[in-house]
């Protein structure tokens, strides 16, 4: 039997969570006052968990590397948040959201977790509205919805193109209320550098104050990791510059299994890169695919003419354009899931049809939407025989109201007006479905150590649907963890405060301090970024949108060699007792250099294509991903020193409430 116990409750799918909640052990309010919880990361998952746990009465400490919890990268999520409210009466239900999510994840997620997520999704919207989150409304005063990829209903709630910002500010406001009461102590500009285990349980962390450099010991009865994903292993991604894997990686090295590292989402609509100096990539929300049509020229002559500046995209007639998503996937068209849309863009660009100088861009065109909205508005305003200019003006106003901030962002970066000429887009690393392995309780394989939000692996399988990350982060933090952690903490009511003057804390602090001293004394010849960029290039070239065995084997060798070189030759300036960004980065890149190799190893072992993981050896004749029945399991890796020594454990995935079939969007 597998060493992994998912602890999924017995009973029918729709009753599992309710029955579970009815039978867990609770902690009485007086005892909660004697229990401490550490939350690392203050995005949607961490922020909402911290606020709720503090509200329940636990003493919470939060840690974030930013100067305020409000700046966690959840803030950059644009499009929206899914919930099975069925306000549109278009046939949505808890089951359908569950079904779409499991199918969207290419049948590689855990049924019971996904169903629970769908079940609590409606509560999230109620909760956020009560907190004052200004979701978009229609003229009657009811909440408005839009559609996202991979589904046939409108269940996405949004606040302009800034939904993540508004939801995070909602969670931050709930935190603020608890900070004011003294129930949350925030440690901002702090970074967790290790977890401390006592008698096998997570009992605290070692953190570094990023301003003074001071190494601190913090104890607690449970530790919650909510530090997000590891997309920055690619150097270039849509993640924030500071986003890192360190907290997850440190618990991995202390016994938490790391699941499905190779499942990475390459988002189809990002602004193409422009040069070697580029520090990050910018996402253009998937919501744009509600109204934008994706195309490249049909004829190579037109491609060349456009690249040479002899033709403009608007010069091409409808017949000269290849709306390749509409052509290949008539049922879902431009709203196919992200993995499918990204691969289709890569396929066209690899075939030579890319429309910019680097050959890595396709068009996202709003001309037909502007036209369609313009005609509709002319009718609404009773304008007969409206001129083409008038229709354009009316239509552009609607598009501006829907996506204005995204269009402005595009214009500022690219210096082109997307109302007048199609946007250029290309896929970029965006989200990581893989992460720390957790059971149904969201607990890792270290007792008392939890992982929530993007940091865990649980809900999205091999591909995440749009607007589901916000849903999962808030579901975990507001509605799931507060129950499951109580069941664990009910055994800690007599434990008392965890002391920090113990050998376990001494040892963990010593390890952290020695590593910092090593970096500062190394005085090598290359900067931290030099290594990060090299790692990113290996990852993108060999573990990117498509992968093959030969490339993955090379990646493993190259990353391993790069890591050796890093430890010999990295140069970190400054001292340990000051604000030193290079030093902080050095530690993060060191961890990425280990994760990257495990990532490639995981991708090599997974001899199938599933969701975001596309193995060239495993595709159908039409070039679609080909899943293998024998790989219907979660890969959970146990740390044993070097990544090459990591041991694979399998959690078999069982589907009792959904038929596993070919994932078709045609």
């Amino acid at each position, binding site marked *: 039997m597998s060493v992994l116990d998912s602890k999924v409750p017995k009973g029918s799918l729709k009753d599992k969570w309710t029955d579970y909640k009815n039978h867990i052990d609770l902690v009485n309010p007086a005892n909660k006052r004697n229990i401490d919880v550490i939350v690392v990361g203050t995005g949607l998952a961490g922020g909402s968990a911290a606020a709720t746990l503090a509200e329940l009465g636990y003493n919470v400490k939060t840690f974030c590397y930013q100067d305020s919890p409000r700046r966690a990268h959840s803030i*950059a999520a644009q499009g929206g948040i899914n919930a099975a409210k069925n306000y549109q009466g278009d046939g949505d239900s808890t089951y359908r959201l569950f079904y779409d999510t499991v199918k969207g994840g290419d049948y590689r997620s855990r049924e019971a977790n996904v169903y629970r997520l769908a079940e609590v999704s409606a509560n999230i919207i109620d909760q956020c509205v009560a907190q004052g989150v200004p979701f978009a409304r229609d003229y009657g005063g009811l909440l408005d919805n839009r559609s996202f990829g991979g589904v046939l209903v409108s269940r996405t709630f949004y606040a302009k193109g800034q939904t993540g910002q508004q939801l995070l500010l909602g969670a931050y406001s709930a935190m603020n209320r608890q900070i004011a009461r003294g129930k949350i102590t925030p440690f901002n500009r702090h970074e967790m550098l290790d977890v401390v285990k006592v008698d096998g349980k997570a009992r605290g962390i070692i953190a570094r104050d990023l301003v003074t450099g001071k190494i601190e010991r913090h104890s607690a009865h449970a530790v919650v990791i909510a530090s997000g994903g590891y997309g920055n292993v690619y150097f270039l991604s849509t993640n924030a510059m500071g986003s890192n894997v360190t907290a997850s990686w440190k618990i991995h090295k202390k016994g938490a299994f790391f699941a499905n590292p190779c499942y990475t989402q390459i988002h189809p609509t990002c602004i193409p890169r422009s040069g070697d*100096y580029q520090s990050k990539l910018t996402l253009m929300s998937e919501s744009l695919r509600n109204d934008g049509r994706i195309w490249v020229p049909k004829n190579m002559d037109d491609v060349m003419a456009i690249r040479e500046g002899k033709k403009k995209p608007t010069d091409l007639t409808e017949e000269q354009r290849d709306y390749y998503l509409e052509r290949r996937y008539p049922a879902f068209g431009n709203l196919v899931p992200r993995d499918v849309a990204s691969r289709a863009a890569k396929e066209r660009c690899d075939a030579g049809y890319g429309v910019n100088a680097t050959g890595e861009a396709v068009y996202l065109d709003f001309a037909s939407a502007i036209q369609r909205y313009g005609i509709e508005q002319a009718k609404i305003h009773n304008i007969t025989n409206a001129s083409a200019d008038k229709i354009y003006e009316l239509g552009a106003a609607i598009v501006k109201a829907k996506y204005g901030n995204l269009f402005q962002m595009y214009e500022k970066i690219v210096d082109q007006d997307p109302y007048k000429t199609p946007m250029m887009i290309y896929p970029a690393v965006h989200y990581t479905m893989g992460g720390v392995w957790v059971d149904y309780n969201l607990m890792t394989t270290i007792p008392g150590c939890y992982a929530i939000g993007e940091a865990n692996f649980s809900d999205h399988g091999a591909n995440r649907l749009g607007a589901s990350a916000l849903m999962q982060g808030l579901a975990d933090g507001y509605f799931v963890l507060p129950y499951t952690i109580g069941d664990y903490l009910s055994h800690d009511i007599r434990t008392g405060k965890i002391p920090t003057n113990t050998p376990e804390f001494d040892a963990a602090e010593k390890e952290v301090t020695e590593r910092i001293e090593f970096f500062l004394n190394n005085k090598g010849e290359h900067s931290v970024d030099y290594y990060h960029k090299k790692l990113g290039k290996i990852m993108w070239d060999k573990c990117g949108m498509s992968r093959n065995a030969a490339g993955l084997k090379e990646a493993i060798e190259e990353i391993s060699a790069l890591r050796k070189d890093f430890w010999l030759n990295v140069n970190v300036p400054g001292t340990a007792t000051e604000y030193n960004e290079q030093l902080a980065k050095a530690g993060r890149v060191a961890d990425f250099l280990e994760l990257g190799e495990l990532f490639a190893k995981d991708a090599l072992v997974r001899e199938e294509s599933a969701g975001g993981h596309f193995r060239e050896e495993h595709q159908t004749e039409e070039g679609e991903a080909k899943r293998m029945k024998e790989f219907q399991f979660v890969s959970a890796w146990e740390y044993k020193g070097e990544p090459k020594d990591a041991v694979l454990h399998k959690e078999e995935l069982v589907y009792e409430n959904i038929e596993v079939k070919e994932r078709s969007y045609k």
Partner: protein
Amino acid sequence: MNLTLKIWRQIDANDKGKMVDYKVTEISEHMSFLEMMDVLNEQLVNTGEEPVAFDHDCREGICGMCSMYINGEAHGPDRGVTTCQLHMRMFKDGDTITIEPFRAKAFPVIKDLVVDRSAFDRIQHAGGYISVNTSGNTQDANATLISKHAADEAMDAATCIGCGACVASCKNASAMLFVGAKVSQYALLPQGQVEAADRVKNMVAQMDLEGFGNCTNTGACEIECPKGISLENIARMNRELLKANV
């Protein structure tokens, strides 16, 4: 293009600080301002000098972390953008660019261009929330109708990213645009009415305690705000405060 940078260097909060000149070459006009700073820092690290510390994170204009005062303007010469979205095409070959931290008594310098904006957090702790438990057992989200107009206006106020450009731009280092935006978001929504009076009083009191100045309606904050937060929010905050005190 080739540029001369005059950058504020300050070791820590106790250091007096000074402007230091640097040269950067072969800067592409497609680079963002912070990518230009990355080039400078890489250059400094490779020549054994201490890189310039500056705050930055999302690099897409939404987290509010970046905070430079460029050629006498918060977030530089472009409008409606944060420093991370400012592009080098706004500058010319041979330009000299002055780069300073956001300056205000309530924003002490931590190092170089990094300042401490925790005063903003403390103002929010004083009342920047609606006191509703996160149990999920609230009423249905559609139970209270909210007019599209009110929802949109609340959203416009809520779009503030808390960067502090308003404070840095104000000759009085006033935080009223920031506080006004938060007060307005809740004042415009029915959910915010219950605590409206206490909220505005507590937030304004904390704002004063932190050492921010008063508003004298010069409007510099509105012009420099990367998110276009309107001065109307200050007027609304003042009305709310008046209402709360009568």
